[in-house]
């Protein structure tokens, strides 16, 4: 593929970087990145990946835009309330950069559809709002052999880590299983400072681009924790757990399964 003059202009600030250059920009243009969740984390990630010129962005989300989403889900605008998030997202991505192809999956991620969808992508970004889906994404990336950039936000605290299946610690090495519903605040009642989604989602996008470009040091075997109240980043060492049920020496999880009802225990259906 050759870039047009307009594309060379559009991506000139990337092409100027020795670590990217024309060659790297072509890698970005050929890349396929999947965003699971077009909400708080998925929004900033989608916008920056679109601006960067990612070839194909996949969006999985079964929700419609809710007014309470707009405080942080910058992919969606006020007139989008009530519209499917994947459609609203696709429009914003293509308005920002018509070079980007957007594949829409207006459905919930399940053990039944995950591997088929993941198989078409180079990198997966976790932007979902519940534990069962986070574990499902981790497991599906392991079985599909796809790098995963995990993120989570709650109140003033955000987390990111990158997982290369079979090479670095997975989410189950870190946390064995989802908490029972109701024990950990994971629903909308806990609240989140909106801009935190921007900070964590853009770190996830950075990680995804580094993986596509094959540059730098990925955030593997490290859990980055950000405390917005103190404006403090902290890195927690993570290791592969030899007893991990998924990627350990004697795995007990040998196929995908839906790990509980994501909305059990919530008074209302959450909107990330």
């Amino acid at each position, binding site marked *: 593929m050759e870039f047009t003059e307009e594309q060379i202009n559009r991506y000139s600030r990337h092409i100027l970087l020795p670590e990217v250059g024309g060659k790297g920009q072509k890698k970005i243009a050929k890349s396929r990145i999947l965003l699971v969740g077009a909400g*708080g984390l998925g929004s900033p990630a989608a916008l920056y990946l679109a601006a960067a010129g990612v070839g194909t962005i996949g969006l999985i989300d079964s929700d419609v835009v809710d007014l309470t989403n707009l405080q942080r889900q910058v992919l969606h605008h006020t007139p989008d309330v009530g519209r499917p998030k994947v459609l609203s997202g696709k429009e914003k991505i293509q308005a920002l950069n018509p070079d980007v192809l957007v594949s829409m999956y207006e459905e919930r991620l399940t053990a039944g559809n995950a591997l088929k969808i993941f198989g078409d992508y180079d990198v997966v970004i*976790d932007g979902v709002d519940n534990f069962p889906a986070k574990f499902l994404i981790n497991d599906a990336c392991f079985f599909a052999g796809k790098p995963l950039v995990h993120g*989570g936000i*709650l109140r003033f605290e955000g987390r990111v880590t990158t997982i290369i299946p079979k090479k670095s610690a997975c989410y189950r090495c870190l946390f064995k299983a989802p908490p029972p519903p109701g024990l*950990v605040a994971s629903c909308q009642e806990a609240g*989140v400072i909106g801009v935190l989604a921007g900070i964590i989602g853009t770190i996830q996008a950075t990680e995804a681009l580094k993986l596509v470009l094959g540059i730098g040091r990925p955030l593997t075997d490290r859990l980055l924790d950000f405390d917005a109240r103190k404006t403090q980043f902290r890195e927690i060492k993570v290791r592969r757990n030899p007893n991990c049920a998924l990627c350990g020496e004697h795995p007990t999880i040998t196929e995908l399964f839906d790990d509980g009802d994501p909305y059990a225990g919530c008074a209302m259906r959450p909107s990330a």
Partner: protein
Amino acid sequence: MIKVRIPTPLRPLTKGQGEVETKAGSVVEMIEALNSTHPGIKDRLCDETGELRRFVNIYVNEEDIRFLTGKDTPLKDGDEVSIVPAIAGG
């Protein structure tokens, strides 16, 4: 003294404090000491059998206690302990 970092979800139990200090010779003693000054914290960290819950990790000086000696991991003056539960928002 041991410095313990309290994660956001547990801060309602520590009157909003992100860090508390306590005296303890091991992680298990630390949990008991925290529970006496901040009642309810043990239930959040441990299940009915007293084992650490599966979605909560404890780090001593940034090392996961699962790779040390678990709940019996010794603590000494000046150690920093982090309690890190899974968080799910997105």
